[in-house]
């Protein structure tokens, strides 16, 4: 999504119409981002609101080198992570066991392309995960963070990040299998 230069200039000048245009353009996609870090819709909208305020506050520092949407998304993610840290939520269980890379490999994992699943269903699967699983999975898979970066952002060890990811994947896989079996069952019944 490309943002019009006049909208950017208007936002830098603090013009409300331009700020509204920017909001209108990106609010839906950014709310989907915030949703992955929030416990419910209210919290996601809180994050979105706070995120937009930060975007408007820092928009003059956007260098126009990369994508504006990517820059904005990063602000939303940072804001969400700050909120999680600020509110003293400690969802990460520090596992004593060191997880070897080999342990992460799940032999049953299908490498092929699974059947398409509606976005709402997938989002709900992510949201139903324990918070630690959810945040690590989202950062690793959706935002392409490394374990090192996740560990640094969340003040946890890399091993914890790996464990949480492993558990998140297993849980999601179970949920997907459940979904497929229900779907198959319904299909047969139909």
């Amino acid at each position, binding site marked *: 999504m490309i943002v019009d230069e006049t909208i950017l200039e208007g936002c830098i000048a*603090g013009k*409300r119409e331009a*700020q*509204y245009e920017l*909001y209108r353009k990106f*609010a*839906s*996609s950014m*709310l*989907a981002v915030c*949703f*992955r870090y929030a*416990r419910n819709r*209210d*919290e*996601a*909208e*809180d*994050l*979105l*609101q*706070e995120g*937009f*305020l930060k975007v*408007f*506050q820092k928009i003059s520092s956007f260098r126009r080198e990369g994508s504006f949407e990517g820059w904005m998304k990063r602000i939303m993610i940072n804001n969400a992570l700050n909120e999680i840290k600020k*509110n*003293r*939520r*400690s*969802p990460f*269980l520090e596992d004593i066991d060191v997880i070897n*890379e080999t342990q*992460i*490999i*799940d032999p049953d*994992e*299908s*490498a*092929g*392309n*699974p059947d*398409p*699943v*509606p*976005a709402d269903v*997938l*989002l709900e699967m*992510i949201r139903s995960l*324990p918070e630690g699983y959810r945040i690590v999975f989202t950062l690793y*898979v*959706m935002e*392409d*963070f*490394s*374990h*090192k*970066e996740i560990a640094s952002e969340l003040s946890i060890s890399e091993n914890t990040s790996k464990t949480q990811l492993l558990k998140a*994947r297993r849980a999601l896989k179970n949920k*997907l299998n459940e979904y497929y079996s229900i779907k198959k069952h319904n299909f047969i019944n139909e």
Partner: protein
Amino acid sequence: MSEEQKPQADAHSGLDNLFRNTLDSHQIEPSRGLWKGISRKLLRAELRHFNFSNLPKAFWIGAAGAVLVGMVFLFNQIPDGKTTENDYSPIIIKNIPKGNTTSGSSENKSVRTIRNPLGFSGGSSARVIQNGPSVRQTQINAASPSLAGNISTRITKTNKNHEVILRSETASLSPSGTEKQFREDRLLTSQERSTNSYELKYLPVLSGTNLFPSVDEDTLLRFTNLNGITNIPLRTHVEIPQFFTFNMGISPELSMYRNGDQYSETNYWLNAGMTYHVGKFSVQTGIGLGYVFDHADYRVNYKSKDSIGYFTSIISFTVTPGNIIVYTTKDIPVYDSLQHAADDRAISRYTYLRIPLMIGYELFESNRFSLGIKAGPAISFLIGSKEALPFIDYPNARLIRVDNNSLSRVKMNWEIEAALDLEYRLVKDFSIYAEPSYKHYFKPFETQETTSSKARDPYSVGIEIGARYNFGQKKNKP
């Protein structure tokens, strides 16, 4: 985002790609009122960072002029607070025989003759003998003589520009015995108020009891005994009551806000305040100690050995004569260590200190009851907390972790309060009061709620009940 290699990515690429590809372009429509919230916050931030130094000089000159004009206006409106009692002695009106228009020098009193506003005509003259310094005289035609006199005279104040009304009630008696009563109101002029002199307008006293042959003696006596004006408590300045009151009260409150769902909490405040009253206006400040009760949410994670199923174990078997094998079995339960999470909610107590600054106005006042309104800002600080602990009693379980999901309370909050003040005076300086109030908070109670629309505008309703004592100059109370 990361340059780091993800060695096992391939192993999970199907799952990861499914989520990544599906959710990457996913969009969720925000609530309709969300932009309004952002816009309001932006406006608030702009006002907060408003730089006064950028304003043009013309604005400053205009503002200074406006302040000056305002101060002059205010200075002219505020009374000096000094009061001067009228030092006039009672003015006595006497009935004087017809034709006697000379001053009553024998009584060593000044003579003041008055007009005839009711249009009585007659040949007799009237003289008012007054202890005051001024002497004036007017001839009044006494062709239709009558007796007249003041029944009462009162000074009353009006709210408008501190005007003073002189109300005279007079009665007259005609020679035929007809009695009439009149009432006249007039404003004292500023000159009269400032110089302690005034001219009374009331019925002329026409003299001569012999002129009333048809009137019985009692009536004549009653009229001749009517004094003109007595004891007028005229003050040259209207006194504005100024005094202090001290109050103490307790206020239960219900605060409403949203944290996921609509949510409310009960607070109790113990307030003490001092109020300075000037006329109908008042300024109040004080201190309040509030006990706020809020939920604390915990998630307790524990592991316990739970039965996950059973298997059938063969204990023995026998072979019947017909070669049928009969097994004796027993179901053996299988246990495994399973992780559980249980949510627990407890009640935490927080203590706040609150300092208000309220401006009040008295709308109505009777002998015992008064009704007023007041409004103003207040600031409150979190000064203590007693956080509740989760209830953990899971037999045969191993506690893994306790997550405190409670939101932390804000350390400082601003609010604006509006209240009705209903006061009932028990004795002269002691009263009880009830104050239903509404408070609007500028910040949410908890740090998490920084942006959601309802959570951003929490409010509370309550009623303070307490007692009040008047200090300093007393009110004119029962």
